[in-house]
């Protein structure tokens, strides 16, 4: 994904795929009642497209379930823990296909899985609320940070526009 694009929330018309925006229904967000922050970024990615490790690291597979064992929420996902500029960073990639995910030691550029519809993405796609995308979360030393900080492409965090393409 050399120059990724932010996935929109099609029904509302807002750039819901950006990190840190009050674009989700919740309790409160930046003092505004009824909203919650979107804690990751949604990058457009067609079904079946490969997803690559962004950094060297250790990959771990996981699946989110409800109480009856149905795949839910993040669905089939892969988290990769890396050391970036001396800091401990964990990047998590949501909504993958179950098969062909990779665990263990990975190198930047390795395929770690393929775009799926797992978790709550399926219902959103069924109802045309968004387009196929990978949701990426980032945690720096355990704290939530903007995943855009770790892309080779520079994307304006407030508009979602590419300001410096991947070299």
């Amino acid at each position, binding site marked *: 994904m050399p120059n990724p694009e932010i996935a929109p929330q099609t*029904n509302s018309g807002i750039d819901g795929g950006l990190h840190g925006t009050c674009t989700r229904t919740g309790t409160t967000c930046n003092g505004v009642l009824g*909203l919650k922050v979107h804690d990751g970024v949604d990058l457009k990615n067609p079904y079946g497209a490969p997803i690559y490790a962004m950094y060297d690291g250790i990959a771990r597979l*996981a699946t989110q379930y409800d109480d009856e064992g149905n795949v*839910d929420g993040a669905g089939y996902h892969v988290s990769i823990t890396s050391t970036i500029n001396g800091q401990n960073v964990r990047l*998590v990639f949501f909504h993958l296909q179950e098969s062909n995910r990779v665990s263990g030691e990975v190198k930047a550029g390795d395929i770690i899985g393929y775009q799926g519809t797992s978790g709550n993405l399926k*219902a959103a796609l069924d109802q045309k*609320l968004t387009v196929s995308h990978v949701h990426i979360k980032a945690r720096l030393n355990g704290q*939530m940070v903007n995943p855009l900080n770790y892309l080779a492409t520079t994307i304006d965090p407030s508009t979602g526009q590419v300001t410096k393409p991947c070299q």
Partner: protein
Amino acid sequence: MKKIYLIITILFVGLYSCKAQLNELTQTEFLNIKFSNVTLDQIYGTEGDINQMKALFGNDLLTEANTTGPSLGRDFWNNNIYLNFEDDSNTGNQYSPTNILVKNASVSVTVKGVTAKLGDDKSVFANNKAINTHVGSNNTIAFIDKLTGSALLIFKIDEISNKIIEITFNAF
């Protein structure tokens, strides 16, 4: 001229068919969705607090941490309903409902003044003119919060019997 009308018609039909067939809810309508007598507003208000959730759903409500996701999660369930909360901040004090599943017909769901439960015919919605009863993708009647377009109440309909076979709430 006829060609222009034809092109406009095709474009219009194309645009319409691409748009999701959803019933939009104002914030008030959305927060007034009821699971039996409990409103979504009340559920949000608990922020996943165990005692407050039991006060709403009864002392038979069980709870357990859901550790399968990448964020802090908390499950609540009894024989009739399942509710999952997540705290994306991972601080433990910002739990918000992300998934609700109605398990049986003892839980009725009210939206826009219409009350439905598992096993009801989809025609329960047709009597309310405020609701677009178009059955959308995968035979569902879906309601979305107009404010963000990120939370769905979905009634899944059986193609043959036209009965409601699944009721779920998802906040993305």
